């Protein structure tokens, strides 16, 4: 780590401490005020870099690019086309040609003097790169799901905590009004004692077929893209479509569990707890290279008796047709989170918020006893916490807990058995077969870094 960067970070931290404990350094602009009005001097900005400059990485980066208190200085990707287009976006914004590009995340981390890193990689790379970055003491805005396996997720959480970095997961629904309102209403018992929750995620669609073996596009380092995943010939599966292969992702299930299971957990105050048992049934294609489930049904039970059902949207859509799922407006198509209490239900998704009784939604928020973390801008919340050193609305441990339900559900589908789960030591207690699937062996020379 460079001394320069260290001193900058301690400067920021001191600034935050100073604000908290009445200003001891009156000449220092408090971090909490940075960016509220006017320009921020370059030396006071949070210096950021991006690893993984695809669609999601660019989306996140643009959010930070538009904040006054950040300076994006470097990007890293294994695809030259990404590097070129993303560098153009940055340089265009700043009116210069200063941003730097890297193909190797280790060079990127060693050479740049950063405060924070935006990370938007295929899931199979999360474990190694997030842990390495955390070990360098850099704060991270990392895309969901937290990791491809339980063990990698656990390592990231431990690395983030041990290195005392600020971590925000890209589960931005935690900073959006209808989701927060739903969670607060449920938390405050508006629908009574919650007994079950249903989570609808997108259907799979295996339309990629069996593309022929081909040369990777010019400027793509395929071996590096694969990294710790098994070596296979290139067949056109690269950006976006990697989600349909088990080596890199668990499909729509693990993509979206980081959103709607995350919200379900928040409403149930389950951010610190996991299921005690889980069973799952997946429908897998019989042909083509797509090998994640196209349909899935996972049922998890919790210690307090709550049952969580996670399924692809069509499952709930069929229930709605049969009159056993809410049948109003956008509740169609089976997406989102529905909590059922002894007084009724509340359903939230990206299209809105609904309840079995309209009055549930009219409860004045100010009358509620339990208030939840109030973030209104997910990316700003990260920057605020980088300055204040407070916890973000979606820290690594929360994201790990949310995606764990889907990851052990995926294992339950692969072994097609009801599994007993010990959430404390993160092991199954009734299947050694299932325990073997808690991690994925890495291809040499890649290894999970130690913390």
């Amino acid at each position: 780590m460079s001394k320069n960067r260290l001193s900058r970070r301690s400067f920021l931290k001191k600034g935050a401490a100073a604000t908290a404990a009445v200003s001891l350094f009156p000449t220092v602009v408090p971090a909490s005020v940075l960016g509220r009005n006017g320009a921020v001097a370059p030396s006071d900005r949070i210096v950021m870099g991006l690893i993984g400059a695809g669609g999601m990485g660019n989306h996140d980066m643009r959010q930070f690019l538009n904040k006054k208190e950040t300076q994006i200085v470097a990007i890293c990707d294994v695809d030259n086309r990404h590097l070129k287009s993303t560098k153009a976006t940055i340089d265009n914004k700043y009116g210069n040609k200063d941003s730097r590009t890297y193909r190797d995340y280790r060079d990127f981390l060693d050479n740049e003097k950063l405060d924070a890193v935006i990370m938007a990689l295929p899931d199979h790379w999360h474990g190694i790169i997030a842990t390495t970055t955390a070990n360098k003491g850099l704060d991270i805005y990392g895309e969901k799901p937290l990791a491809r396996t339980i063990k990698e997720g656990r390592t990231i959480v431990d690395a983030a905590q041990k290195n005392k970095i600020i971590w925000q997961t890209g589960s931005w629904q935690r900073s959006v009004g209808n989701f927060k309102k739903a969670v607060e209403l449920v938390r405050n018992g508006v629908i009574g004692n919650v007994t079950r929750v249903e989570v609808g995620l997108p259907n799979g669609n295996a339309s990629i077929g069996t593309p022929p073996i081909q040369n990777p596009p010019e400027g793509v380092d395929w071996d590096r893209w694969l990294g710790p995943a098994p070596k296979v010939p290139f067949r056109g599966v690269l950006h976006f479509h990697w989600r349909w292969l088990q080596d890199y992702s668990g499909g729509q299930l693990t993509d979206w569990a980081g959103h709607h299971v995350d919200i379900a957990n928040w409403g149930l105050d389950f951010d610190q707890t996991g299921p005690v048992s889980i069973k799952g049934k997946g429908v897998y294609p019989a042909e083509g290279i797509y090998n994640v489930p196209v349909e899935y049904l996972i049922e998890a039970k919790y210690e307090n008796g709550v049952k969580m059902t996670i399924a692809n949207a069509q499952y709930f859509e069929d229930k709605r047709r049969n009159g056993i799922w809410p049948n109003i407006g956008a509740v169609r198509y089976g997406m989102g989170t529905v909590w059922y209490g002894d007084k009724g239900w509340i359903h939230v998704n990206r299209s809105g918020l609904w309840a079995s009784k309209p009055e549930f939604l009219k409860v004045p928020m100010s009358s509620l006893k339990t208030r939840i973390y109030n973030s209104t801008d997910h990316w700003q919340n990260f920057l605020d916490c980088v300055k204040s050193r407070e916890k973000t609305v979606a820290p690594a441990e929360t994201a790990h807990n949310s995606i764990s339900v889907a990851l052990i559900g995926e294992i339950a589908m692969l072994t097609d058995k009801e599994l007993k789960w010990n959430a404390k030591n993160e092991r199954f207690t009734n299947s050694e077969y299932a325990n073997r699937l808690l991690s994925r062996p890495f291809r040499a020379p890649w290894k999970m870094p130690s913390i």
Partner: protein
Amino acid sequence: MKKIFQLIVIALLSLSVLFGCKENKLKALIVTGQNNHNWEESHIILKKILENSGTFNVETSISPAKGEDMSSFVPDFYAFDVIVLDYNGDEWPEKTKKNFEKYVKDGGGVVVYHASDNSFPAWKEYNVMIGLGGWKGRNEKSGSYVYYNNRDELIRDNSEGNGGEHGPQHEFVIEIRDTEHSIVKGLNKRWLHSQDELYSKLRGPAQNMNIIATAYADTSYKGTGRHEPILMTIEYGKGRVFHTVLGHVGSEKVHYATQDAGFIITLQRGAEWAATGEVKQQLPEDLPNVGSAFLLPNYKFYTLDELFAKAKSFEYGKAQKYLYLISNRIREAKGGSEKLKDFENRILKTMQSDDATSECKNYFCRELSWMGSEKSLPLLNELLKNDETSEMAQFALTRLQQQ
């Protein structure tokens, strides 16, 4: 001499008992000979499919060619449990029509296959039997359009218009509407059907008709935007009719529509239902689903031995289904260690055979990585020595030996 003759008769009788005697099988008659489709191939395919179910003995009745004298065409319907119509052509003689009506009314079974529902637009009783038909001048006088709309309401629409149309062939999802019907009970509620003509805007009397499955006719394939009936049953007198609009066989080299596992299962079970009113056939282990169209080029489901034999020669870019079907069956073992040990033995045996490809070995390393035992270790260690298999062998060993 007489004695020898008796002995031969006894021997023949016992042979027929030994070889799953004819008497136990249902008798099916395929009626074909004229069609706007490739009947020369389709009726052979239908015969194979029905015979492969193990339920039917199949005979074929081929009509005179189009335009020829039909008066001699008088099949003996009563000798059969089910009549499978692969016929779209000239009018049958009046006598044959009357025989057929009576046969069905008295409790005979009928399967209406694909373009057979185009045939005989003016034969009133035939149109009652098939429920819905299309083309050949069918219009509002033929009966209602019947379909499900996007709010899942069953619509009978008597508006004016022609009956029968379809867009270009494509893959489409078939959705079961009557999940409890014995023809489809136990199948996945939806499956992706291989490329086929999606018959739409069929119209007809639709009396005593039950829609068992539909498919959404996507407007991007010039479809109606409706959920069109795909599989139907019709009760006619004491008889039963199973109507499948699937299974186009044209001049193409490969007849994907009829190779589709869903087409095959529903034809086999539908024909049995039409013949007897119940379905005793066991469901195959590998069921079609929405993930991908599932083709059976030999019109037969695979035994586990066959799957492993096919898996041996797997190479990148070739069909993966044999491997996937094995993986599915491993999942179906539900983590039961006895069953998984059997799979482990079969996998090891396959990987050890001389003609197993590296791709096959690498695929099975993934399965062994979680369901293997110490029994797999020697082979995996052996595979470490080969450049083409060392990485996946290491993958499996790492997992099997982790603490």
